[in-house]
């Protein structure tokens, strides 16, 4: 029997093969609104696939969402999958989402680090980096969230290849990062970027590499506050919010700093829920509640992006 996207268990974690198979079924079943784009290949030559949600038009303003850049944060991939299904099920019913999709396209990169994710299933559940290797070191992997051009190599990243926060030899040296940079830059009309991590219940905006407030700090602060409030209303989970460097710590070469410096004003990163007991091993029973509350925050950011063109 062929599986379909509707028989997929959204309340369970899945392997890379299962997710890619789900993508194919999902695209087939919702071909009027969803398509799959192959934007590149990982270091170990796995496909990097993104979903495009569009109701037509060409080169519309767009919103980017990525999940799983740190492969062990399985709740983020699961939340991304649930969100994708939510977008197709809410279109035509939820007036806010319908307005957004009638004007903008949404792109979701569900498995941003496919090699790392496959490795978490086969060898080391707690693997975080990608799987690139280089002559001269026996240590494997680059922290893909330190490999972006903005602030590359600065505080909060590490030049030691054995470190969990190794920034890599040069900005965008990693194919997983380069594929996204090329795609977003080539598209040229992204207005929001949301990068999803787990697990410390935060919603943050640039900068990570500097304590200096960004020029849109006030607006981003107000929007983060609103998004966190919307999230809280679903299951009563409290998030803290602010700039990365002020809320969490200084981190250089991160996705949202690059996005902001590349002209994408609404650049946010989530740290999804933490029950204080499980860390990266959040039980699958919490996938749907996590996704539900995250959706409300994402929807708030997308709505603001729609209503505040720039």
């Amino acid at each position, binding site marked *: 029997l062929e599986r379909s996207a509707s028989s997929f*268990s959204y*309340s369970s974690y899945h392997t890379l093969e299962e997710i890619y198979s789900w993508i194919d079924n999902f695209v087939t079943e919702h071909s009027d609104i969803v398509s799959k784009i192959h934007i590149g290949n990982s270091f170990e030559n796995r496909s990097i696939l993104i979903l495009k949600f569009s109701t037509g038009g060409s080169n519309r303003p767009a919103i980017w969402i990525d999940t799983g850049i740190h492969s062990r944060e399985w709740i983020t991939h699961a939340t991304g999958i649930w969100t994708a299904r939510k977008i197709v099920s809410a279109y035509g019913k939820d007036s806010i989402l319908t307005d957004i999709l009638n004007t903008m396209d949404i792109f979701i990169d569900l498995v941003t680090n496919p090699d790392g994710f496959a490795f978490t299933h086969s060898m080391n559940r*707690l693997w975080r980096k990608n799987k690139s290797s280089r002559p001269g070191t026996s240590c494997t992997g680059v922290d893909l969230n330190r490999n972006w051009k903005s602030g590359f190599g600065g505080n909060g990243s590490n030049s030691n290849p054995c*470190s969990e926060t190794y920034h890599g030899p040069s900005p965008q040296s990693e194919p997983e990062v380069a594929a996204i940079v090329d795609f977003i830059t080539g598209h040229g009309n992204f207005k929001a970027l949301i990068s999803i991590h787990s*697990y410390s219940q935060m919603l943050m905006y640039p900068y990570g590499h500097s304590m200096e407030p960004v020029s849109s700090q006030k607006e981003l602060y107000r929007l983060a506050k609103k998004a966190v409030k919307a999230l809280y209303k679903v299951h009563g989970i409290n998030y803290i919010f602010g700039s990365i460097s002020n809320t*969490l710590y200084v981190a250089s070469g991160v996705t949202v700093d690059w996005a902001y410096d590349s002209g994408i004003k609404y650049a946010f990163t989530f740290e999804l829920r933490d029950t204080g007991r499980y860390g990266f*091993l959040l*039980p699958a029973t919490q996938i749907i509640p996590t996704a539900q509350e995250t959706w409300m925050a994402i929807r708030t950011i997308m709505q603001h992006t729609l209503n505040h063109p720039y």
Partner: protein
Amino acid sequence: QMNFTGDQVLRILAKDEKQLSFLRDLEILKPQKVDFWRGPARPSLPVDMRIPFAELDDIKGYLESHGLAYTVMIKNVQVLLDAEREAMAKARR
């Protein structure tokens, strides 16, 4: 698949910047022994770190010697991983 039997995740709430610096030192001194799940950021935020079973006594001793109080967030990482695998297998069935 790497086995995490006996590995623990400790949660530490540093009282001040000085205590945080001891945790940062740990990150530098023993990078292979400690896996920070939530790194030392600021005193108001907890620090979570996974310690391999073989290193538990050493690291706990280090924390105690610097007056860093900790709680055990996960007593045995492998137990959670086994439950996670079982849940996935069940969902697949």
